[in-house]
């Protein structure tokens, strides 16, 4: 079993479910498995079929493609027809669209197709299919399952386990031997995707700060008061307290990542165009509407961007990718601040007043167009990648995401979201008020104060990818989060309790901020399954938006009433909360599975150990065949373990310690 191709887990999930309907054929199925294990098993695919005809078609296709492909290569098989649709809860069962996961095992050379097909017929009892969906639901909740059915479910899972455990890195390695430069698995293709992902966010970050960069012109050309000017930001941020949560959920549930990204990128373009049009016509209300649309798109686009990153780079580079995305966002706003004013100066030769402003904003809209284009290209790339790897996209059609799933998010996720709020509260509102603080406390002139204030962002643009790389190499995300919280605490304390040159504190803060950003966000992907990532990132971002919106207002009041010392105390307080939470994460994590704080080498060591074990176990299981000696207790454990494992293997993360032990015990037996 050198080459062990398989379609990804989501299809498996359907497989496992539909197996329920085949209870009566189980024994013969197991026996067949045994037979196959004795022969050299070349390939092992899980494929969904619309109907029996499709199965036949596939088998035929396999033969033909095999003939075309050079010897020794595996024929590539895709599921024909539409993807299998899932019935939403509450709707009456649809008879036509049924799901029938079918194992196709066949040997090499290919002449035993008939046997394979014959075996499949045994599973293909159409009378079983009608209630398939209901049983689906049952297994999903994992609650109403009786011991009998659970046993059935796990019988197959146990057999699947070893296959699933083979994780993507390994497979990627196999593939890289034979893929060309243009293959989705190749480095250059992934680098291109990364670039596109970065550009994806560039437009919205560039345009987000357009008003700030042109603040004086806005106020002058449109005769705005400061309060009115602030509307341009508040109408962006307030709706997003709710909307980016919804946006993330929509990615998971309705649009899927690719369509979702394109839609959000499109919204960004539309929003910016409306905004610019409002400026061109001198209609302030239209500009606010534009900002509102822009906001809906922008924040959800950030969620989509995170999702894409996880989808493409989960494994070893994720931290760095997050860092790189962050740094590109910073580059976006920095470029904006440096370019917009000269641009306005240039345009003002030809246009005047708000018309000029409108034209400048139209020009700025080209960056959002760039983002839209990169979203489209990314769609193509992602399709190819999926075709190649056979992995469904995040939020694919297989697993139904419900908002109520949020209840089952692990406590570590909520703690991570807690850090997202409490830590960022000590950074962004501080920078919003930082300039005057440096001028007053450290007696800097406005220019220097501005520079010191922007140090955090400048540094994060450079340091984020590097620190991300560091976290990738070293692992131990939770530890790095703790470190960066503590060092930020130190930097804020320096600013609060000393007159030490603020450059020191701000450089420190910039580095810690970058470290945190590249270590924290990937942690979400470690604790949340892929298909819920959109929702999860949406929640984290929504909570963060809410916190930022409230606290930015509050911070101004604190400065007025209690001065900068109290403001610093306020930030220190939030950092203490972040510290508390990160300690809790460390404790809870090491108490549980240690997933978030595993070093890279530990992870690797475990990886090898796990796949060896998996192979061993697989052989054992296949050899033993019958399930008679497996007690219900074992099944129960394994069922939990299976789910955990399924999700861990997806992210290439090590298994929890107690599971390892459980596994060892099982293998020894």
């Amino acid at each position, binding site marked *: 079993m050198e080459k062990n191709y398989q379609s990804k887990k989501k299809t498996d999930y359907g497989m496992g479910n539909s197996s329920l309907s085949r209870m009566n054929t189980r024994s013969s199925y197991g026996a067949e498995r045994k037979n196959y294990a004795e022969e050299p098993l070349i390939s092992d695919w899980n494929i969904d079929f619309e109907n029996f005809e499709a199965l036949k078609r596939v088998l035929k296709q396999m033969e033909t493609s095999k003939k075309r492909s050079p010897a020794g290569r595996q024929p590539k098989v895709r599921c024909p027809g539409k993807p299998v649709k899932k019935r939403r809860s509450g709707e009456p069962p649809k008879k036509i669209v049924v799901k029938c996961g079918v194992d196709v095992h066949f040997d090499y050379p290919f002449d035993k197709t008939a046997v394979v097909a014959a075996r499949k017929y045994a599973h293909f009892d159409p009378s079983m299919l009608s209630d398939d969906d209901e049983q689906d639901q049952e297994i999903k909740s994992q609650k109403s399952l009786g011991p009998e059915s659970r046993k059935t479910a796990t019988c197959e899972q146990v057999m699947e386990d070893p296959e699933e455990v083979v994780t993507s890195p390994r497979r990627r390695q196999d593939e890289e031997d034979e893929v060309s430069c243009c293959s989705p698995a190749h480095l250059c293709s992934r680098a291109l995707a990364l670039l596109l992902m970065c550009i994806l966010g560039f437009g919205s970050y560039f345009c987000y700060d357009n008003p700030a960069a042109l603040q004086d012109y806005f106020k002058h050309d449109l005769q705005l008061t400061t309060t009115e000017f602030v509307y341009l930001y508040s109408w962006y941020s307030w709706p997003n307290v709710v909307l980016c949560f919804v946006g993330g959920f929509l990615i998971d549930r309705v649009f899927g990542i690719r369509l979702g990204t394109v839609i959000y990128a499109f919204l960004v373009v539309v929003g910016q165009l409306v905004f610019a049009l409002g400026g061109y016509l001198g209609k302030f209300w239209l500009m606010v509407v534009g900002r509102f649309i822009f906001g809906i798109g922008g924040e959800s686009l950030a969620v989509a961007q995170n999702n894409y990153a996880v989808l493409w780079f989960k494994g070893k580079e994720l931290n760095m990718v997050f860092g790189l995305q962050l740094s590109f966002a910073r580059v976006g706003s920095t470029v904006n601040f440096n370019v917009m004013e000269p641009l306005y100066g240039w345009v003002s030769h030809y246009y005047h007043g708000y018309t000029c402003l409108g034209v400048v904003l139209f020009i700025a809209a080209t960056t959002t167009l760039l983002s839209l284009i990169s979203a489209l290209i990314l769609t193509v790339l992602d399709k190819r990648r999926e075709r190649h790897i056979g992995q469904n996209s995040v939020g694919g059609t297989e697993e139904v995401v419900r908002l109520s799933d949020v209840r089952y998010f692990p406590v570590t996720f909520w703690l991570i979201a807690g850090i997202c709020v409490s830590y960022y509260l000590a950074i962004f509102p501080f920078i919003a008020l930082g300039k005057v603080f440096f001028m007053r406390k450290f007696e800097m002139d406005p220019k220097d104060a501005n520079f010191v204030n922007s140090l955090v962002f400048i540094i994060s643009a450079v340091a984020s990818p590097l620190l991300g790389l560091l976290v990738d190499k070293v692992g131990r995300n939770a530890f790095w989060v703790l470190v960066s919280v503590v060092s930020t605490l130190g930097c804020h304390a320096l600013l609060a309790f000393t007159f030490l040159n603020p450059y020191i504190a701000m450089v420190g803060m910039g580095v810690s901020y970058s470290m945190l950003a590249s270590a924290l966000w990937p942690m979400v992907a470690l604790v949340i399954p892929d298909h819920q990532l959109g929702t999860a990132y949406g929640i984290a971002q929504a909570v963060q938006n809410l916190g930022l919106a409230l606290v930015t207002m509050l911070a101004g009041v604190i*400065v007025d009433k209690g*001065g900068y010392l*109290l403001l610093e105390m306020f930030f220190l*307080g939030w950092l*203490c909360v972040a510290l508390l939470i990160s300690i809790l994460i460390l404790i809870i994590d090491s108490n549980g599975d240690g997933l978030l704080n595993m070093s890279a080498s530990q992870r690797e060591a475990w990886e090898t150990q796990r796949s060896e074990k998996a192979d061993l176990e697989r052989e054992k299981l296949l050899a033993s065949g019958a399930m008679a000696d497996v007690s219900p207790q074992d099944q129960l454990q394994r069922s939990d373990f299976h789910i955990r494992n399924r999700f861990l293997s997806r992210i290439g993360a090590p298994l929890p310690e107690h599971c390892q032990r459980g596994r060892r015990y099982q293998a020894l037996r």
Partner: protein
Amino acid sequence: MLWLTLVAILIIPALSQQDPVREIHWASNPGCPDNFTRWDCNETQILHVMAKGPNDTINYLWAFYSKPALLMAVTEPEARLQIDWNQLGNSSKRLIRFDPQPTYSFGLVLDRIIEFYDPLDKADMTQANSSIVWDCRKFSWTVKDVTSGVENLRVELLGNNYGNGSKIGNVSVVLSAFGRDGYGPLLPHMQHSNNASQVEITLKNLETSEDFKSESRFGLQLMVVDSVPGEGMDEVFHRRSLDDEHTPGVFDINTLQTPEVRKGEAGGYMEWRPVAYTSPVRAIEESTSAVHYPLRNVSQAHLKGTLLHDFYGHNLAHVLVPQSLNISFGIAEDGFYDATKYNAWTFTMAYGQPPKDKFSLLVIMILAVGLGLPTVIFVFGGTYMCVKKCRTRRDEPLVN
């Protein structure tokens, strides 16, 4: 435990370091004779405020005839004040005495208001093109309100009708005496001891000179003198405080020290934050700078007819060293005085040593809880984890 001790170390001194409370008594025109014709004795010309402590009394004499003048004299608890009302302001003799003599005294006169032309927008009085002097003697000063409690007293003084109506605008001075440690009720919330008085000077709606084209700024000239012969004050001492909790956004404190204070002994001092407010609604965005200039020795002639002259007499000319301190209000690009037509500035005038900064209880609590709680959880969580790991390690051989 460590944190509890630390908290205790930080909080207990903060609570226990309270100075004893002084009782405030006051009298308007003490000893004003019934048949006195020069002024109406019902209209306050001299206010005698006594802050009585167990060992000594701090006497504040606030006089509103001529230029407003403030005198602070430290005497024995039972010292008596004698004023020769008939000659007040017209003699070079000592007309105001304490019996027994004060151990220390410190006086201040609001001498002039200076309007300066600032076309270059430097907000620097020394670089002004030209200036106009408003002599404080030419205002008519009236006490508007006196509010008193056991531990404090507040007097509102209004100077208007400059030169019999030749100029519009008024100067309001709010004088407070405190018998207990604390902070001023309004921004900049100056910290004060129980030996302190506070002065708030507000320049309201002053008519700026037409020649200055609405590019005027205002400043004050104060005269200070203390009872120690021959030395005069040190330069204004500038220090920075970490704590802007009471004066948001202002980290600086300026102190005009007498030599005694510098030596660490009890003496008179003036303390202010370099901030002035441009609106009755005092807030950080309604603030501007209060710039001070080097001290200058001045002749006693400036003080003629004032309370200080009546108190120190000839000594003022021969032994003591009267000095002037100039303050100006405004920073570049604030639109000059005419933008708001309002400048309010506050300083304390006190005896003893300037109060030390201390972090408020709130700050200490945030630090203690914010850092204490994670530490506690870290320690307990860590211990729990260790214990648990040790146990499982011990369990394993048993299972095998």
